[in-house]
């Protein structure tokens, strides 16, 4: 069952890379968060049932509920439907996502886990989710897309943490969740300001400050 979830996560990755519509991306991120949230239920471990259920519920609430809701709210306020000019097109993004998966498998083959894990695919899939998020951040110009990419990046790191290190003092995991939560809120607020100030949220047009552009460009 864990393998099914991991496969689904990879499919979600590819979908988020291939779609340029913001609302579709937000939905995929919500599903991804939900899939990652239920992963702890399929891991063998000695966590008492009550704590496990709490973690799962809190993660589901934050990753699949609150954060996507906030992103959708931001999208409505900022009124952006799709990514107008991504730096990398849809097909090339999907192929890069596959390359990221290959890279993740390569890296994880060089880093053998010193203890037993539930599935040999967890580390590669977690790394590939993070690489996908990173790729989305650098290949999209739309500010909300970049925030979505950041959320996917954090999802990958969270999967890595929760799958390998469930016995760690969980306060840190929850603290991390809190930080991501607040981070996304702050980013969302900044996006509001950007849209209010510039009447668009296209970060490729935020290039007034640079050392290598001629000074004439300071009109926006």
């Amino acid at each position, binding site marked *: 069952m864990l*393998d*099914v979830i*991991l*496969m*689904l996560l*990879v*499919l979600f990755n*590819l979908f988020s890379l*291939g779609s340029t519509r913001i609302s579709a991306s937000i939905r995929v991120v919500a599903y991804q968060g939900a899939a990652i949230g239920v992963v702890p239920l399929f891991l063998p471990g000695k966590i008492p049932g009550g704590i496990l259920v709490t973690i799962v519920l809190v993660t589901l609430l934050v990753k699949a509920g609150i954060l996507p809701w906030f992103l959708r709210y931001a999208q409505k306020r900022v009124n952006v439907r799709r990514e107008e000019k991504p730096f990398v097109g*849809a*097909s090339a993004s*999907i*192929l890069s*996502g*596959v390359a990221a*998966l*290959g890279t993740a*498998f390569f890296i994880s*083959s060089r880093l053998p886990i010193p203890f037993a894990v539930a599935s*040999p*695919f967890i580390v*590669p899939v977690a790394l590939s989710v993070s690489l996908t998020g990173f790729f989305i951040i650098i290949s999209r110009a739309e500010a909300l897309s970049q925030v979505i990419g950041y959320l996917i990046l954090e999802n990958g790191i969270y999967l890595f943490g929760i799958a390998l290190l469930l016995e760690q003092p969980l306060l840190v995991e929850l603290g991390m969740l809190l930080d991501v939560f607040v981070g996304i809120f702050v980013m969302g607020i900044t996006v509001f300001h950007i849209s209010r100030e510039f009447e668009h949220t296209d970060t490729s047009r935020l290039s007034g400050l640079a050392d290598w552009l001629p000074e004439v460009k300071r009109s926006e």
Partner: protein
Amino acid sequence: MKNLYPLFNVIIALAAAPLMFGVINRIKAFFAGRKGPPLLQLYFDIGKLLRKGAVYSRTTGIFFRLAPSAGLIAVLTALLFIPCGAYPAVLFFPGDMVLVVYLLGAQRFCMLLAALDTGSSFEGMGAGRDAHFSVFSETVLFLCLAAMSAASGSVSLNGMLFTAGGRIWQVSPPVLVVVVFVLYIVLLAENYRVPFDDPNTHLELTMIHEVMALDHGGPDLAMLEYAAALKFWILASLPAGLLFPHGMKPDFFGNAALFLGLIALTAALTGALESCAARLRLVKVPQMLTAAAALSVVALIFLAK
């Protein structure tokens, strides 16, 4: 007697292939609220065409006359390598999966040659589109076969679908589900079904495959139609072989019935999809096939680990 079972399976395939197109049309009619053509319609059509004569344009050359038969021979040869459920294929050797794909490609090549031989612009356009899309669909097909061979450990179609049997699912079931899905997409692409091409279109500008069949008549057209039906059967045997319940160990007739049922199910699914979905814009077809290629590479990476 048992050694002849694979041959009997091939005879059953030869007999049953045109039935599948009948199933597709009947399902489409059902969705549209009509009664639809009889299930055996393609048999009647082929019979009628065989009794007719053919008219050849003066601009066509030798390729136009030879292409339909050459294509049919290629497809018939490919059929000999496909195992049927719990029985092996007639011919097999390591690496025959490449040969099968090339034989199917050879059939397409013959059709392309014939189309270009007519010297007409519509045929040229259709041939160009067909060749363009085949680049993607054949790549995806190869990647799927590579994934299947990684899962089963064999590079022969017979090895993958018959010898490995149910064991092919033990490596990683969810990944193989993705492979089945991508094989289905390849089936749609290679057989010119919706969403890649509309088989009912009568507008030349929107034709991809129908253009090839446009100029042939009589026995040539019969051979083309029959080859198309066999191609559908061959490509549908791949997911059917993966999904076949090897654990049941049926006898000969049970095996044939199960396999026929699986392929008929594929045909019904195709018909349903054709009724419910619309055809993709031509520029979107490479994107869709690239996504399918990405999925098959993902499956390959998972299975090759």
